[in-house]
């Protein structure tokens, strides 16, 4: 195929991927009269910040934005605190026969369970514990949800680090935990950062658990708050789009940071909830 023709096709594909996102952004900064103009206004319109002000001044959306931030960060920190030592233990410590592999696969297999299978019992458990409609409940669920992913990713990154590094540190009198924290983790930093990014995105994007486990305005996350504004007949397009843009931007920024690891992360089921 001629090289120019290739670029034409590539540009077409790129347009198809990006134009809908661009359209969302324009609706979020268009005045109401410009939103439904025929022919549609792609470039020439008077921008306004009104919809952003409007959608976040009623308090509820701002609160859910904060909830999303809080839940995503805390569940990521917890998943790392629990999962990183597990990954290290599986990768570096002695296990009888092939137990390290067996446990590793078992951990990963729990990630393959569709949420719809476990959501009813989780709902009942959280209700019993008085954690329904609380951010803490959602944090616990997301921690468990991200845990297999953290273990699997970090195991891969630890495998790439030569054992001699930490053995030298331990010869110098460091404990194993000390060697992990002071020697191994700094070397694994890029992998650790990628893992953090993926956990944040998963928790940030997740919809089904949040929909069922946090139903009050005070506790719910941004995706659920946006969805509840998308009602069939009366939609405030500008405000809805503005909220959508706010939900979208952090994810794109984070993904850009972890681009190198995207294939590895995505194939382990990162990003989608």
């Amino acid at each position: 195929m001629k090289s120019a023709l290739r670029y034409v096709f590539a540009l077409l594909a790129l347009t198809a991927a990006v134009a809908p996102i661009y359209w969302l952004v324009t609706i979020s900064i268009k005045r109401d009269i410009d939103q439904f103009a025929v022919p549609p206004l792609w470039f020439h319109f008077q921008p306004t910040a009104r919809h952003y002000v409007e959608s976040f001044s009623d308090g509820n959306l701002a609160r859910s934005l904060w909830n999303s931030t809080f839940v995503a960060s805390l569940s990521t920190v917890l998943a790392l605190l629990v999962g990183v030592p597990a990954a290290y233990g599986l990768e570096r410590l002695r296990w009888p026969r092939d137990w390290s592999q067996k446990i590793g696969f078992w951990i990963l297999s729990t990630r393959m369970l569709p949420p719809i299978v476990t959501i009813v019992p989780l709902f009942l458990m959280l209700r019993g514990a008085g954690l329904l409609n609380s951010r803490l409940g959602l944090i616990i669920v997301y921690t468990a949800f991200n845990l297999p992913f953290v273990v699997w990713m970090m195991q891969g990154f630890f495998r790439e680090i030569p054992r001699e590094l930490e053995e030298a540190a331990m010869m110098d009198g460091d404990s194993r935990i000390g060697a992990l924290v002071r020697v191994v983790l700094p070397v694994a930093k890029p992998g650790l950062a990628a893992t953090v990014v993926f956990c944040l995105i998963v928790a940030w994007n997740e919809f089904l658990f949040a929909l069922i486990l946090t139903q009050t305005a005070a506790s719910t996350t941004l995706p659920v708050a946006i969805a509840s504004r998308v009602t069939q007949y009366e939609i405030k397009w500008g405000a809805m789009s503005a909220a959508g843009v706010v939900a979208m931007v952090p994810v794109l920024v984070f993904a850009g940071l972890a681009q190198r690891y995207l294939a590895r992360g995505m194939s382990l089921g990162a990003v989608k909830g």
Partner: protein
Amino acid sequence: MIQTLRRSWPGVPWVAPTVVLLLALSIYPLVFSVKVSLTGPAGFSLANYARLVQDRLFLQALAQTLLYTAVALAIEFVLGLALALLIDSLGRGRALFRAGLLAPMLLPPVVVAVIWRLIYNPQFGVLNGTLRSLSINTSALTWTSGEGGALASVILVDVWEWTPFLFLLLSAGLQALPYEPLEAARMDGASSWQVFRDVVLPLLKPVMTLAILLRTMDLMRIFDQIFILTQGGPGFATETVSLYIYRTAFRFFNFGYAAAMSFLGLGLTIVFAKSLMRVMRVSK
């Protein structure tokens, strides 16, 4: 006892918190669901599973889920592979194209749904707006709001959102291909189509299998976008298994029946995964 444990299983304390947490939040719920699905008013009962085969709404939701999965997967796979080959063959600007093409799959599903609301709305959407400005009559084009085109319309959304995923995995696979067999085939005078069919495709098989497997698992449990775009409607036109389970569990509070349905879906997915791996002759 503790001494031997410490000597031959030194990794246990490192892994224990993870295992405990997953037992409590994945395995216990799983076992609980199995139990609830097998419990009737008078103890053990298969009634929930017997009901599955007679529930016409469920069977319709199942058929639609399978159709949705098959059609979306086929389109996404072909497009994803074509894009991977296309972008791989470009000289300049590869990184830029790649970054842009990946954007849709990273968005929160709820944002994807909002975007396609803005596009599909029959009166105000940009799609019909564009068609109207080309003086095409759009009164019959209802997209997600008409029973006839709703399923196809939500499939199109899926294609937009997830073709990038196939593209990502397949281009990663292409980039990891060993150089020698390709070069050897070219030296032997094979045409680029022959190289593709006889060298690239076989080498790409493990990645293709993985990609199909992962995508199928997600398609079979599709929920978010359809829930927000159509709620399974109009009528029952875009109802899927996950939506039906959601309604059964959280609108009608029939947890046992919901669990039974979720296991049927899971079972079908596992059967598909096993047969795919057999067909592709790939282990694990």
